[in-house]
């Protein structure tokens, strides 16, 4: 029998490092440090030395490198992002309870309720390791929502992957969708919508964005700050491990390049069960008012949480790093500071509340460790067995990172791209006009990768849990009830169009906002706030930087016109492979409010004989459209933006919903009227008879253009006979173009459009639903 060798006690192994103390750093100014490997540039390292008045210790270097990364510091975009705070009127501020800068913005819903929502990217990890990347994307955004004091109530996930038929797309698709489902479903949060776009520009840089929304009472809003000298600092939740080290710096802030070693170890690994327990545990802490300040641990882990909590509060904190509970006892202090292990939170607790805090932890079997306390010294001091390894002004870590005015210029190729209109191009040859050809074109459109049915994805997500989901995919917006007594609720939609934004970043970003705004209004909700996830290529490329600057300028201008503020968001740069960036893809989420979600308007037809109206006018706008995309063309100018028209259309749709004037409404966007008519038919399997002659005569377009143009500011609605006069009177009074284009036909099982061969709903459905299963099984 062999003896089992004695295992060294973790406490002993943990102390075997050659600890680089502040004292040591002061004595050894010339020690070589791996700042470049950690993602810092020479000028940034020099700045760290200047700030500290000496070389940083290894631990300090770790902190600065992650906190000054593009991902955490917004150093390339900060100067531009200011516009979201500057271009805000008093009117726009009236419902904003917490603005940009906190974990997530908070908007007043009335009746004492508040809502917080935010969209973030988890792009790079999701390419390297799709399941864990996407899963922890959900986990991170949900913790942002909890950190504000809110109960999370729903998630959404806009996805952009490479070409549908590329072999690697299936890897990303299966992994990311399973990850979002596997994590989100286990949290008990309904997934109420999102997007799915396929385009080869995202082949090496898929976009996995995640949105979460939470609700709370006004008095429950929590902020991330550490105040009150002598209050205790506690870390709780999962243990700290070696996963996700440098995720923010080496992964999220650099371009991919296949000459470098795999970055898989920089991806975090999620445990949704730990997160679910953490959610309930935090809500119980809030309920008992047991925490003074709270911060989730996401990008940059403990570095971020300690420096942000300290600099937002009284400005001082002392932490003993060996008190951190570890999964892996061999982690160095720098690794502990940089680890992005998931499902962790840091809180500040008064000494009186320690016992009550520990009781909640014990109830939920959540591990915790007391790390230190709040001081009034203005310094963040981190010790390792009592020896000082970090002694910094926390502001310099959290807020005073480098800010760059990156050079930008309108790309030389932009003019040529904009001059290359689809109309008259080689790809435009043989534009369909015969009835059979138009029917074939419509069928091809609704079966195309971007327009096809997405239920292959959405049926892998729980939409019901919570019992408050009033509407979800495939309707225009996801709708969740907040207050069961009154029906008060929220609607959410996310949109982006990379092709439009490539053609014209300023207007493309506005079009994304306009569409999300329109989707929310189409559901019947009043748009209130915006969160954006700006996915772009490398800011060191002046072309990309121009796209980013233009998109931010466009978005902030449009928010002013629509009167809804940006309350938070995220910037994801370096989404490029080699020197080829993705299409600029500002994903815009709009939140709207319902006084009573029972008034929501679904997108499908139900009642036989209801009148179908087309709202808005149609111009010949095929550049950047799905049709041109299907024909392999990208050039020209995107559809014209008319924000006043969007506002007016929104008012009509909101009033119509509130006063019961429409039974269904569907916005027109990608795929134009053709896509909207098919989607409204297939929603409940109820067809229609449509005649577009009045539209053709009024707008001077041909039938193909009427069907496939992507002119903005339009929607189709179904109006009960009894409401027709009231509805048309309202449109007339508001001077908004409206024309009756047909009638709902519950009997025929077909979609009849004059001039187009009659299409059976069964055949349309088969084409619409077959695409994703064909590629992904």
């Amino acid at each position: 029998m062999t003896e089992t060798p004695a295992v060294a006690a973790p406490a002993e192994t943990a102390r075997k490092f050659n600890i680089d103390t502040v004292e040591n750093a002061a004595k050894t100014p010339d020690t070589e440090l791996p700042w470049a490997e950690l993602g810092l540039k020479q000028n940034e390292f020099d700045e760290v030395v200047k700030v500290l008045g000496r070389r940083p210790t290894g631990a300090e270097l770790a902190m600065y490198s992650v906190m000054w990364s593009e991902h955490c510091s917004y150093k390339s975009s900060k100067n531009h992002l200011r516009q979201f705070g500057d271009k805000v009127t008093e009117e726009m501020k009236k419902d904003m309870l917490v603005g940009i800068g906190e974990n997530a913005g908070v908007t007043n819903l009335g009746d004492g309720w508040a809502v917080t929502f935010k969209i973030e990217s988890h792009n790079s990890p999701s390419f390297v390791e799709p399941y864990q990347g996407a899963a922890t994307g959900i986990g991170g955004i949900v913790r942002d929502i909890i950190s504000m004091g809110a109960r999370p109530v729903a998630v959404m996930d806009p996805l952009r992957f490479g070409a549908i038929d590329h072999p690697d797309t299936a890897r990303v698709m299966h992994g990311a969708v399973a990850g979002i489902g596997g994590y989100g479903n286990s949290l008990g949060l309904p997934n109420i919508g999102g997007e799915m776009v396929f385009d080869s520009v995202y082949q090496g840089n898929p976009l996995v964005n995640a949105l979460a929304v939470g609700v709370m009472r006004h008095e429950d809003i929590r902020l991330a700050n550490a105040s009150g000298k002598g209050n205790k600092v506690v870390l709780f939740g999962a243990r700290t491990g070696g996963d996700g080290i440098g995720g923010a710096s080496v992964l999220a802030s650099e371009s991919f390049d296949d000459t470098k070693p795999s970055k898989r170890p920089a991806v975090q690994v999620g445990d949704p069960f730990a997160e679910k327990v953490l959610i309930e545990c935090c809500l119980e802490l809030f309920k008992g008012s047991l925490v003074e300040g709270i911060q989730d641990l996401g990008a940059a882990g403990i570095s971020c949480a300690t420096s942000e909590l300290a600099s937002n509060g009284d400005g001082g904190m002392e932490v003993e790093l060996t008190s951190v509970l570890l999964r892996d006892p061999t982690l160095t202090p720098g690794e502990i500071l940089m680890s992005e292990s998931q499902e962790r939170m840091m809180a500040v607790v008064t000494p009186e509340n320690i016992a009550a805090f520990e009781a909640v932890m014990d109830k939920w079997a959540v591990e915790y460790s007391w790390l230190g306390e709040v001081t009034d010294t203005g310094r963040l001091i981190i010790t390792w067995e009592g020896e000082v390894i970090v002694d910094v002004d926390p502001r310099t870590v959290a807020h005073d990172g480098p800010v760059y005015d990156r050079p930008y210029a309108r790309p030389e190729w932009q003019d040529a791209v904009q001059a290359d209109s689809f109309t008259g191009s080689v790809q435009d040859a043989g534009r369909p006009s015969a009835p059979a050809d138009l029917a074939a074109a419509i069928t091809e459109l609704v079966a195309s990768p971007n327009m096809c049915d997405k239920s292959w994805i959405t049926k892998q997500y729980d939409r019901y849990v919570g019992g408050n989901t009033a509407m979800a995919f495939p309707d225009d917006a996801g709708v969740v009830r907040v207050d069961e007594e009154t029906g008060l609720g929220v609607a959410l939609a996310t949109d982006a169009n990379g092709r439009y934004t490539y053609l014209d970043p300023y207007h493309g970003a506005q079009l994304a906002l306009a569409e999300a705004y329109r989707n929310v209004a189409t559901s019947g909700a009043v748009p209130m706030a915006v969160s954006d996830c700006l996915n772009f290529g490398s800011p060191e490329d002046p072309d990309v930087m121009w796209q980013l600057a233009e998109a931010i300028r466009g978005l902030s201008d449009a928010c002013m016109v629509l009167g809804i503020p940006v309350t938070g968001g995220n910037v994801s740069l370096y989404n490029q492979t080699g020197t080829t960036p993705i299409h600029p893809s500002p994903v815009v989420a709009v939140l709207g409010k319902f006084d009573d979600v029972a008034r929501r308007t679904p997108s499908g037809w139900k009642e036989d004989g209801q009148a179908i109206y087309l709202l808005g006018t149609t111009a010949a706008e095929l550049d950047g459209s799905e049709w041109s995309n299907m024909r392999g063309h990208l050039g020209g100018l995107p559809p014209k933006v008319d924000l006043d028209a969007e506002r007016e259309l929104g008012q009509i749709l909101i009033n119509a919903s509130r006063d019961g004037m429409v039974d269904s409404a569907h916005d027109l966007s990608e795929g134009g009227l053709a896509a909207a008519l098919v989607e409204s038919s297939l929603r409940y399997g109820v067809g229609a008879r449509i005649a577009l002659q009045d539209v053709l005569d009024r707008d001077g377009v041909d039938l193909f253009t009427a069907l496939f143009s992507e002119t903005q500011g339009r929607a189709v609605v179904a109006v009960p006979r009894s409401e027709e006069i009231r509805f048309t009177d309202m449109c007339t009074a508001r001077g908004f173009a409206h024309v009756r284009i047909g009638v709902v036909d519950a009997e025929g099982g077909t979609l009849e459009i004059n001039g187009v061969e009659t299409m059976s709903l069964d055949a349309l459905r088969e084409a619409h639903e077959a695409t994703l299963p064909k590629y992904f099984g």
Partner: protein
Amino acid sequence: MTELPLIGEAVAVAANPRLAGARIGVVTFPGTLDDRDAARAVRLAGATPVELWHAGTTLGDVDAVVIPGGFSYGDYLRAGAIARFAPLMSKIIDAANSEAKLPVLGICNGFQILTESHLLPGSMIKNDHLKFMCRDQVLRVENNTTAWTGDYAAGQEITVPLKNQDGQYIADEKTLDALEAEGRVVFRYVGFNPNGSRRDIAGISNAAGNVVGLMPHPEHAVEAGFGPELGSGTEGLGFFTSVLNKIVGDNK
């Protein structure tokens, strides 16, 4: 800090006053997700939901117990395998097997916990297509004499949401034959078997009919507009009114 109960809290509905005194326990494990929904369903049926914590050692004076869906203990090891050892489960097992025959309903993860507890035979494995699936599912009520199905007609078809990853019901042929022979197949999938369950079985009962488990979620079909789009949207409410009528009937 105020209470946060309004999310997941149901509006009181005018219910049969006879039923209002009934108390139905809803168990919460770490990782349980549909407990608030089950409590809402109990309320909408007219009874009083009672929160039961997995670590508790008493059932109090509840008249019935619902073990709701979710991922208790993260479904680690095997769905329901850890939850089965919770202190409260031994109380539930005893009460279900006692002469009083406490009515117990296990939904989804609750069903998995009941099979792991040996209150019900068979087991659930991963769906045959290996994916999580969320859909509106049509079920046929094969047995309307259990504690939880008395308000349905035999053979009635109802639509309730289904959402799970490990929903494929399996058992050996002998067990399946016995279940069929004894009328203990309570629900069968109609039109589409969403997970490869043997003999389209969606739910079963114990021999006495007081313990019922099923994979689909009746508690998500209790309020029009917040459940399935097919049918009335409230076709799951009958589970909860059934048990109330049973309780009140027994107490008469």
